[in-house]
């Protein structure tokens, strides 16, 4: 029985835009960064529609803009032995790990005109992932001050994004599907020491096919962002 609400809370529905969803398979980190750079430029001048890139990376540790050196716990020799690359990235956030069994999503969206709010964008991505894992019966949530999606006190998905000139997004999220979680021991994920990591495979009995997760994430992404998803293309551009 509450009564409130100031002006400006009523929204106007925008006509639905298209979301092109593209499954790229396994892509080395540097290649994915370059592809995103090209797509951001193309999106800015409207040569392409909003696009969601879905892919996996080979083992790689990436450093966000606020990364701290001491959050990488392995030295170069150990890294070489484990076959882990290390890269600077142009996204926000600290250190993270990507590797096989992890669904990486890079949305290249134009946030204009109605979504020009960085926090909202990050919260929306969390919402996508919370809904997606809910489809597998996993209850995820947010943690105050710790961006990402958490199952209990363990992190299942990491988020780090970049917004380029003209409100064009790149980078995005990484959802652990059946990632070998031991690789996270090499880093302090996103600078958070209390609380570990988890994966869908760890939370769900039976197997979790990457394809199903892909389709679910794409569908929830379209829902949350009010876009119309085009079928996942199984090709590399």
């Amino acid at each position, binding site marked *: 029985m509450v009564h409130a609400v100031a002006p400006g809370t009523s*929204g106007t529905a925008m006509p639905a835009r298209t979301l092109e969803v593209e499954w790229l398979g396994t892509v080395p980190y540097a290649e994915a960064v370059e592809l995103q750079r090209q797509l951001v430029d193309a999106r800015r001048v409207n040569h392409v529609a909003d696009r969601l890139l879905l892919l996996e990376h080979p083992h790689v540790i990436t450093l966000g*803009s606020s990364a701290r050196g001491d959050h990488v716990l392995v030295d170069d020799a150990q890294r070489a032995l484990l076959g882990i690359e290390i890269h600077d990235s142009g996204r926000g956030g600290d250190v993270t790990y990507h590797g096989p069994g992890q669904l990486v999503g890079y949305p290249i969206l134009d946030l204009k005109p109605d979504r020009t709010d960085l926090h909202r964008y990050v919260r929306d991505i969390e919402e996508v992932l919370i809904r997606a894992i809910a489809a597998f019966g996993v209850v995820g949530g947010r943690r105050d001050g710790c961006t990402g999606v958490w199952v209990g006190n363990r992190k299942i998905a990491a988020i780090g994004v970049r917004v380029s000139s003209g409100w064009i997004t790149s980078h995005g999220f990484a959802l652990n599907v059946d990632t070998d979680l031991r690789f996270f021991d090499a880093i302090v994920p996103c600078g958070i020491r209390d609380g570990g990591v988890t994966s869908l495979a760890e939370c769900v009995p039976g197997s979790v096919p990457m394809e199903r997760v892909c389709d679910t994430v794409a569908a929830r992404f379209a829902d949350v962002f009010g876009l119309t998803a085009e079928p996942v293309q199984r090709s590399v551009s």
Partner: protein
Amino acid sequence: MARIEVPMPQMGESIAEGTVSRWMKKVGDEVTRDEPLLEISTDKVDAEIPSPAAGTLVEIAVEEGQTVEVGTVVGFIETEKGAAASTPSGDGDGDDGDSTKAKAKSEPAKSEPAAKSGPADAPAAKAAKAEPVALPAADGDGGDETADDRLRRRSTPLVRRIAEEHDVDIAAVEGTGRAGRVTKSDIMAYLETREEEPSPASAKRPAGTPAPPVGGDGFWDVFYSQVRHPEFSPRAADRVEPMDRIRRLTADHMVRAKRIAAHVHSFIEIDFTQIDRVRQQSKAAWETQGARVSYTAFVAWACARVLREFPMVNSTVSGDSVIYRGDINIGIAVDLDPGLIVPVIRGADELNLVGLARRIVDLATRARDRKLKPDEIQGATFSVTNPGVLGTLVGMPIIPEGTAAILGTGAIEKKPVVIEADGADSIAIRKRALFSIGYDHRIVDGADAARFLARLKETLESFPADAG
């Protein structure tokens, strides 16, 4: 040449500050308009900030790694001779030295080269094309700037919000910040001194804005206008989510509303037998008019009429005065699940029953589709909330700020009741509901509320069969 400020842009509603993570240009570098100038980071997001104008980066005011409030000038661009551009925050030619308010006021609208675009929409904002108008030198006065532009540039959103809440003209505040900007401490100091002077205009204060206390020390301003929700630690299995905008506004409003009005509640039971009879009789006729007449429509109809007899119920306390509202605008609470919105039926007493019913259906539908216009959720002089729709017997609603009362309608259920006919008592099955009124005891006395409820009961129970 003109010197243009580059402000820390507003990159989201809940974002109050940003960290300069990287300058992509050095002092002396040339930039084109919209070319990425610097990078800021906030939370998990890095964002490129485009240059507001073509020119040369001549000064970096905020170094990499520093965190500053939204609106703070982080650097300066000097444009080519004769070229003018407006920054996303609506700056004109952007001198940084002058700050005399007299000038801003004396030359308000000689010409307006600068766009009055919304405050700092950053990359999204399109800088308006401005024809050069003999721009002053960099040390000079910003004669071509409108007062509006100047004010906006001179204060952060936080300061502007405080100014708005306290009805302060920022131009009247002495600024001690960079380039004469009014800082938060400036405006707080101003408010304190202002309170020492009596305010003759309290009756003109808009509804919902508490009057400034006489001779306070800022405490009462804060008490009436600001809400802080205490924090609690989450436990392992918990989920922590930030409140969205509607939730936060609701939370603040509820606390303020309860803090200010002296809440009292009274109850009455109302028989709906007659209303039911009218509904049965007229249903077919209404259907041919395409109208659905709910119980709520009857209640709103009765309230609109009875409120005229009880001006204190349709009023609000404002400072040391009482504003008796001339219109009867009834707010109807609509459950959005989650969330709630209160669209307003303006001039409710001018509508007949079917007109009210149509209006309620229209407002509720658009409320659920999030298509209400801002003025359709403002200006209520009285409210109705219906917890009964979900089976609740009745509730004790909070009185919305700026009004004196709210009606709560309980579930309409069949009950055995004792009725008296021809001097003999008998038990009958009747449709009845509990109604409650929450009223501000500062202005509405208990007997007023009792009389109001009695009149409402009488009006509904003897609803004329031909009123539809």
